[in-house]
């Protein structure tokens, strides 16, 4: 019998918090502003897109190392904070004392105008400065992908970010000097128990392990599994859906592993985009650009590949490359596991091959054999932190005669599910890998895809651009097309 704890425990700034009565769908932002009177974090959008509510959440990783990451408090549920250290803007400088180096740089470089986005920007820059005190321009921009500012045009914020280290060094920051004591306090909180609070729709469950999750979910197949809450959060803040009870899986150790198993990369369902990046890009360097363009940093710190698959969105960014690479997904129902090709998991819009009480446990991606060409392209209205109009991945293997031996093409945003382009693939195979040789495959796109017109793009654009991406893939593999790059000073 698993041990059960009936309180959520975490540290808020300097204070130990124990909650025994909190609704499953209470967001961290409402908790801070309404329950604690901490009004420094702002609500700009309530959907994790503007970053005005950015706070830091520090957690111990598998090795016991304390790592702080930015999150958007507006779509973070309280159940995600067990055994965590939550740091808000109020923690950075005392009311009458000197400003924090990040804050002083922002003042001196005129980085605030209306000031409403400013606390969130400060928190994102704080996280950046702690891990990278001398950031490149690109690093600054990446760290601000999840923060909107409507006033400044960002130049002043950018300049402030580059200058922070002239105001102070992370070594003297409280989060560094108090790291050992906070680590010890968090270790004491992490007791390995299942956490359960409340009842009925308000019930919160934090399973203790993968097996415990399998048991709990089988018993409560109507519960909603919450991984990073980057999508589920909106079901509450935007659609006001009553989705409890909630099972939080983001901290289950057995789901947070990523690593090589033979010639495959195996990714646990709870691995966030941020945690996966190094392994993912080492295995598939072609995915580096895509990876940094999935949402903003706060969302990448919370969102998981497993959930990106499990929620079955036709516009998720990871399924197209994973399908093109031939990934498998492993499901677990009450401890019984089955594995299927990822492309078969997506049945129809809103429908996946997942039974009641069954959850996505891991994804396994075969490494790319030597000599195969692979590329992934994301198209969106805005380059960063935007949902794809279309996301396409191409993989071809050429034979000794320069003809296509095999091809896998998959797209998101082009159909009701992430989908392979089987007609395009068929038209490629056996053809010479030349401009003329791919013509039939380009022409085959309408057979595979009849995309929709919506707010992100028209059907005409989606189809034309998808066809052109095959041309781009061909040109790149033959050294005849450059990628659009932004060279920031």
């Amino acid at each position, binding site marked *: 019998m698993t041990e059960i704890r009936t309180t959520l425990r975490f540290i808020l700034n300097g204070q130990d918090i124990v909650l025994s009565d909190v609704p499953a769908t209470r967001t961290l932002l409402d908790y801070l502003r309404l329950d604690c009177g901490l009004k420094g974090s702002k609500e700009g959008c309530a959907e994790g897109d503007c970053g005005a509510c950015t706070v830091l959440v520090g957690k111990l990783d598998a090795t016991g190392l304390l790592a702080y990451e930015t999150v958007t408090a507006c779509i973070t549920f309280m159940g995600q904070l067990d055994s965590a250290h939550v740091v808000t803007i109020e923690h950075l400088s005392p009311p009458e004392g000197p400003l924090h180096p990040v804050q002083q740089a922002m003042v001196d470089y005129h980085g605030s105008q209306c000031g409403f986005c400013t606390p969130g920007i*400060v928190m994102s820059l704080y996280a950046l400065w702690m891990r990278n005190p001398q950031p490149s321009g690109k690093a600054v921009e990446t760290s601000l992908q999840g923060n909107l500012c409507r006033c400044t045009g960002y130049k002043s914020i950018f300049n402030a970010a580059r200058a922070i280290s002239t105001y102070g060094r992370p070594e003297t920051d409280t989060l560094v000097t108090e790291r050992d004591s906070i680590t010890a306090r968090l270790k004491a909180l992490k007791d390995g128990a299942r956490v359960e609070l409340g009842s009925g729709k308000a019930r919160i469950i934090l399973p203790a392990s993968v097996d415990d999750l399998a048991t709990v979910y089988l018993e409560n197949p109507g519960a909603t599994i919450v991984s990073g809450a980057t999508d589920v959060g909106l079901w509450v803040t935007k659609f006001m859906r009553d989705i409890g009870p909630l099972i939080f899986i983001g901290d289950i150790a057995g789901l947070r592993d990523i690593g090589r198993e033979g010639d495959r990369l195996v990714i646990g369902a709870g691995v966030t985009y941020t945690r996966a990046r190094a392994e993912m890009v080492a295995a598939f360097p072609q995915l580096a650009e895509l990876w940094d363009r999935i949402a903003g940093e706060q969302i990448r710190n919370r969102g998981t590949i497993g959930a990106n698959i499990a929620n079955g969105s036709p516009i998720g960014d990871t399924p197209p490359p994973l399908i093109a690479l031939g990934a498998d997904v492993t499901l677990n129902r009450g401890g019984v596991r089955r594995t299927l090709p990822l492309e078969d998991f997506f049945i129809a819009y809103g429908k996946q091959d997942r039974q009641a009480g069954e959850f996505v446990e891991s994804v396994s991606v075969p490494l790319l054999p030597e000599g195969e060409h692979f590329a992934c392209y994301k198209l969106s209205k805005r380059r960063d932190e935007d949902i794809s*109009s279309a996301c396409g991945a191409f993989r071809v293997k050429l034979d000794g005669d320069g003809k296509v031996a095999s091809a896998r093409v998959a797209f998101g945003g082009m159909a009701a599910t992430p989908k392979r382009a089987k007609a395009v693939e068929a038209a490629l195979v056996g053809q010479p890998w030349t401009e003329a040789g791919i013509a039939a495959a380009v022409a085959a796109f309408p057979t595979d895809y009849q995309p929709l017109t919506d707010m992100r793009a028209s059907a005409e654009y989606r189809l034309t651009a998808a066809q052109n991406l095959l041309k781009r893939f061909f040109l790149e593999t033959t050294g005849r097309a450059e990628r659009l790059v932004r060279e920031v000073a």
Partner: protein
Amino acid sequence: MNKQVAITASPLHQSQPHDSAVKQVAGRAEYIDDLVEPTGTLHAYLGLATRAHAEIVSMDLSAVRAAPGVVAVLTADDVIGENDISSNHLHDEPIFSDKHVQFWGQPLFAVVADTRDIARRATKLAKVEYKDLPHLTSAEAAAEAGGRLVTTPLKLSRGDLAEGFSKSERVVKGRMKLGGQEHFYLESQVALAIPGEDEEMLLQCSTQHPTEIQVMVAQVLGIPHASVTVNMRRMGGGFGGKETQGNLFAVVAALAAKLTGRAVKIRPDRDDDMSITGKRHDFVVDYEVGYTNEGKIQAVKARFAARCGWSADLSGPVTDRALFHCDNAYWYPAVEAVSVPLYTNTQSNTAFRGFGGPQGIIGAERWIEDIAYDLGVDPLEIRKRNFYGTDTENITPYHQPVEDNVIREVIADLEKSSDYQARRENILAYNAKSRVLKKGIAMVPVKFGISFTATWHNQAGALIHVYRDGSVHLSHGGTEMGQGLHVKVAQVVADAFAIPLSAVKITASNTGKVPNTSATAASSGTDLNGAAALNGAEQVKARMIAQAAKLGNVAPELVRWDYSGITAGEKFLTFAQLAHACWMGRVQLSAAGFYATPKIHWDRSTGRGHPFYYFAYGAAAAEVTIDTLTGEYVVDRVDVLEDVGRSLNPAIDIGQVEGGFIQGMGWLTTEELWWDQKGELRTHAPSTYKIPLASDMPAEFNVRLAEWSINKEPAIGRSKAVGEPPLVLGYSVVEALSMAVASVADYTIAPRLEMPATPERVLLAVERLRKEAAH
């Protein structure tokens, strides 16, 4: 010694941080939703129509009323005074609609409950039965369907159009479409109403126009203006979106507070805010322009049709301002421009930084571009050939002479500093070699008229108190939305009294202190309120000088006043000592300052007058790279030169230019408003509506102020307005994209990119030009 230096320097014309910068970075700057709520504060939430155009057959709110925690439900029947908040008094803007739904998102009722969450969820329990009516969401559809107008159109004309076209060797006709823009102030609309004794009502709300909130609340509650006080410390962004669009929220809070006797707060969710409130007007511009073989414009005939939405709101003056700017910086020997403010079943479009001016200017730039592609020369060259003169060829379409023209100087300066010509040559060479990626570069000028075209708005008041410890309390009619108005006005007052900036206490805008204010809008905040504050300070200072003269027994003109103190004969006093001496001597240390802009007048019926006090100028050069396979692009470099006269605060002004440019660029590139077939706006949150990010900033972004410029008119400190003009410069990015697109057809076809120029529009333009060139 250092200390001495520090206090002898005037803070005016120096870079100073925003007045709230320290509080903002620390998260201690208070916005309305952060204020401590009075005990028992209730929360209101609006119930919205889910049809674009319909009759309401029935509305059953019984389940809403019955929901636990709901205290009251308000409908049109509950309005005490008039169920109307039309800012122009056309009576076309009900608070709650009870019979006729005119757009998707129109408020039908409000729920008042113990918490915001309860109120919000309860709105979903309403059962509303509709009878659908045909809806019109686009300006083109509205025009085709008969072109119902929301307000009286304007016509500007000057010169003989027939003669102009007869002198023209070439004529171009075209249609340009450019989209609207959501303000996306980071702080959504919000109001807190606190009932007082008798019939008094205090409003704390996020508004650019406290007086209008006061007037609307009084109208809706049926009480005198004097019974309503509006207090406003700061907004989390406005951009025009809080000029009239806060009225709805304020009156609902006030009405609920009146009916419940408790404080009531209302704050819509971002999606609801974007679904309810008006945006920048999208335009369809039809034009016919005659010109010589040298590209010299002879005649312009243009029709500016705008999507105004379901009510007039500010659409009249917005579409007027589009016409006022359809010349941009160019001399038209003959011109006729008309506005067509169209009724549509969409949010009621409203003020947005530039207020129609940008759309007018972009119209002008579009036909310049057409002429350039027709003649095969750089558009910049066509611009130069058509710039206004200084003494001749300088009469605008509204018959006001351009008396302060510096556009040639601005362009010459920027052309040199940006190395425009050499870079253009390099880009032409690059495009000739590069197969997939193509580059473009463009330099675009802006001339922007400064003043409200409704002449009576060009007035302002301020209240200056000097306390006997020498501290100064400053209150004025302007509002702080991030633009740095308060620090600039405080600099003016500190300079007037020769005291440190820190001695001037900036306070909230409050209708009880400064009455009958104008909206903080039209880039006029500093010009008007700075001058009013200076007037107030000078009144007090004159009395203080008289008192000093009396104490020193010298004539007032012999009193010396500088940063060290006040010397009158043998007598020396610090500012604080003199303030104390004035109090002892029973001298009034408080004054109401006032200012009314001189010289301006405007007769809309004849289309003639002198509506603008002066013009602000600027220019930008943008360089881009596009991917001709996907339409994606990056902005490689932008150089901006802005004429702000003699800047009161260069750091603040640079921030306005940078922010304005990026906001304009966003409007014209990635910010797309999209309505579905049912007439629902589907881009109503940052997940679907994409404003620029840090990584959209030009990779190299050089912004300068024209330090050589000085306002020819005696505006405050000889500075010029800065809020709106730089926004238009974002168009330089579109024209650079156009050049990159045009390269696929060897620059022989004007690409006529529609705006926003999303990657989709760029790609489809590339494909279109390729096809046209192949024929």
